[in-house]
């Protein structure tokens, strides 16, 4: 490839395209865009080696606003397009932007397979628990009772849990962040980028027009500290403004309990320590929901293994190492005869 040594470190601005950003004023997507641009600059990414692939939805307009290569594909199919791209060009840095409808409604199967195969791309799922672009129908992550144009009496089907779906799909990297937490998002993006395999990041995103405040139970200022748990590998699962709340494992029920250190004889030792390689813990953490539990944020699960594209490349390379194919020879192999 044709990469010149960067003349200077790029800034977030260098990752912004010349297109005017066209989301509703106040949409959470703006903050995520900013965070991604900043992260890429911090990671030393090169726009020419970076590709953003997306499906359809408000969130999926993302690639137009990046100065990188970009492919705005069709609804739900971005993982398939990205897989083909990665197989063709494993050296590219591929990011996939999708929404809760795009990824989990129409696109659920492709998401499943890109995770199962562990294709080395970074998947950012903007979860606003609604269909923004088509004007507010409920989505597979909408909570029970969501009133929407298609569910005027409230939805009755229980929502998908994006991270648990990823876990069930054998994802090896699962993380969660919030649109407005630029710093934490940046950390998550850096980890996702470092992981050579499918990195799944759910981003809690506020749709100010069709689902405003959907996440206020843990995003609103008054709840943030008490209901967000930012996990760090090797650190105890502690949260709360006073750092006095924590998660304890109940071995009888094989489940987590939210406890307060100093109450009922709970000490810091009782608190579980985060182990991002532990799949059981990942199931437990991703299953927690406020207000009874904190919303768990950060890198929840990371247990890398060979990526699909690397394995395919290894197989291809091994064959090619024996020399290039000769078509004339191939076609003449086996039983042939001469006519003269």
């Amino acid at each position, binding site marked *: 490839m*044709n*990469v*010149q040594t960067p003349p200077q470190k790029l800034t977030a601005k260098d990752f912004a395209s010349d*297109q005017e950003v066209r989301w509703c004023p106040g949409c959470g997507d703006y903050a995520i865009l900013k965070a991604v641009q900043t992260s890429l600059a911090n990671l030393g990414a*090169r*726009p*020419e*080696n970076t*590709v953003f*692939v997306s499906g*359809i939805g408000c969130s999926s307009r993302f*690639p*137009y606003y*990046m*100065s*990188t*290569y*970009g*492919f*705005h*594909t*069709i609804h739900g*199919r971005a*993982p*398939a*397009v*990205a*897989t*083909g*791209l*990665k*197989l*063709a*060009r494993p*050296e*590219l840095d591929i990011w996939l932007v999708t929404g809760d409808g795009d990824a989990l409604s129409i696109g659920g*199967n*492709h998401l*499943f*397979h890109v995770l199962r195969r562990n294709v080395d791309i970074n998947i950012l799922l903007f979860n606003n628990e609604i269909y923004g672009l088509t004007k507010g129908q409920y989505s597979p992550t909408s909570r029970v009772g969501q009133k929407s144009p298609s569910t005027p009496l409230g939805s009755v089907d229980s929502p998908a849990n994006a991270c648990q779906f990823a876990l069930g799909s054998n994802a090896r990297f699962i993380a969660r962040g919030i649109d407005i937490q630029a710093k934490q998002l940046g950390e998550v993006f850096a980890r996702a980028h470092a992981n050579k395999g499918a990195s799944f990041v759910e981003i809690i995103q506020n749709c100010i027009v069709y689902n405003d405040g959907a996440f206020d139970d843990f995003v609103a200022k008054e709840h943030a500290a008490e209901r967000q748990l930012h996990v760090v590998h090797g650190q105890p699962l502690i949260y709360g403004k006073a750092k006095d709340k924590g998660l304890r494992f109940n071995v009888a029920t094989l489940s987590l309990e939210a406890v307060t250190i100093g109450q009922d004889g709970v000490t810091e030792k009782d608190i579980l320590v985060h182990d991002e390689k532990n799949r059981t813990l990942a199931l437990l953490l991703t299953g927690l929901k406020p207000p009874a539990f904190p919303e768990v944020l950060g890198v929840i699960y990371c247990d890398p293994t060979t990526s699909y594209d690397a394995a*395919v490349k290894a197989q*291809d390379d091994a*064959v*090619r190492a*024996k*020399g*290039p*194919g000769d*078509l*004339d020879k*191939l*076609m*003449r192999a*086996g*039983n*042939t*005869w*001469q*006519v*003269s």
Partner: protein
Amino acid sequence: MNLQANPGRGDGSSAEAGAQADVDSVVVRFAGDSGDGVQLLGHQFSQETALAGNSLATFPDFPAEIRAPTGTTYGVSAFQINFGSRVVKTAGDQPDVLVALNPAALKVNLNVVRPGGLIILDSGAFREKEIKRATFDTDPRTDGSLKQYRVIEIDISAQALEVAKPFGVSQKEALRTKNLWVLGLVSWMYDREMKSTSEYIARKFGSEDPVGQANVAALRAGHAYGETHEISGEITPVSLPAVKFEPGTYRLVNGAEALSWGLVAGAQLANLEAVLASYPITPSSPVLHILAKLKQFGITTFQAEDEIAACCAALGASFGGKLGITASSGPGIALKTEAIGLGIATELPLVVVNTQRAGPSTGLPTKTEQSDLFIAVWGRNADAPIPVIASRSPGDCFDVAIEAVRLATKYMTPVMILSDGYIANAAEPWRIPSMKDYKPFPKAFRTDPEGYQVFQRDPDTLARAWVKPGTPGMMHRIGGIERDSLTGNISYEAANHQKMTDTRFAKINGIANDIPEQDVEVGETSGKLAVVGWGSTFGPINRAVHNMRARGHSVSHIHIRHIWPLPRNLETLLKSFDKVLVAEMNQGQMLTLLKSQYLIDAKGLLQVSGQPLKIARVEAAIKEQLGV
């Protein structure tokens, strides 16, 4: 009795044709249970026949996809071969010889044998239970069902068991050598060398394996049986002289192989690597299987989770600067519709291989039909033209695939190849081309950022430039929302959409100037009747027109390869005939296309029985048109 009593009829020369009284071609049909190895038998016999220098065409006639219980009629597998000392173009209308390895095989194939034809039966398989299983009420050998045929009964099962004894293989294994015993017998009948088969067995089993040894023994025993046994009175072995083929190196090839190799060849000529993304489906899967073994040619294969993902992955690969290819059939093609639209919108190269099968819906997966012309040409939401090219025979798939790659890359567009189940599976002798005889059409990627605009077009082809991600200074975004005709940014402008739609049309229509003019396969370029075909009906149409011309009728054969856009001269050509007859295996799709484009009052010879068109039917239709 003489096998050659009524030779050549099976090749569709109709009864009144006196021209071919000498033995110049024979149609043999092998039939047995799915487990009897009939396809292998047919394939090896074809191989031997090809090596003997005869012209040949084959028709592997598979049962439904699932292996059925032994002895049932729906579990019958058949293989038909037509071979001769003159150029053979179809697998033959009616077999001269049927080898039936069990009662079910007889039941299913009885009605296709030419009256007076020869039937060879494995009498060892005609036990009461099996006869019943085959839904015969009484034993067909004794109830008069076979009275219009010559029948030779041999207890092939017993022969095979006997021959295998010394090798100590299981009874099951021993019985499975029946196919080779039969191969030995017919090799004797038609004076074939069995060397290639012996070698094949040795390769497959190794020389030490008793099963392999039993197989070779069976082969020899069948041959010896012919030479030494009583049937030598009933059958006179014949030898058909070799056909005078064009000089060159030949092999047998089926459509799936030729098509796969053609895709490799196309990629090489375009100087590209390729990604084939596919999802298995009958009869398209072999393309995936074959290309999966050709990694040394810079081909990466990907079995996607479904056809939508396959098509999308191919597009992703094309966006990445490799050639995206996807292959499917029937329902799988339907599923790709939306993604092909994305390819049209983003103007990326994409080759879609459609190996047609009978439908609608799941239809008859193992049966042939040419009924995807409509979906190929018109089957997408909105105004969404793409080039469509059809291959006419197994070997022709090679060139069609190259042409598809050329158009896809030169014009930055999805292209659909129409093959079909018959072409994909049938084998024919093929003069192996040399890559050096093909003119390369290397595709250049744009790397110069100076003045680059995403939807700027080459003034000749109207194609936009292809840019590889990774190229500095050329970063751009594309997508399915209508794009500004220059920058490629999203545009909702009315005038821009009109312009882009017009341009997409003009680009595809312009390809008419870059493809060969339509030629006439047989006959004059004007006259009373043109029989128009496309795809795998080539053989029967061609033979029928030949036959009719031999009888002095004014009829020509025109076979269309470029279905969209149509060749520029086609209108004039068709209008030079008093009448046009379109013969196709569907309800009139090419017929409709031609009528819509040229307003010609063409007629159709339409058949959708899932079986190849018969020469006799085409001849009858020609007669009807000519009023003779």
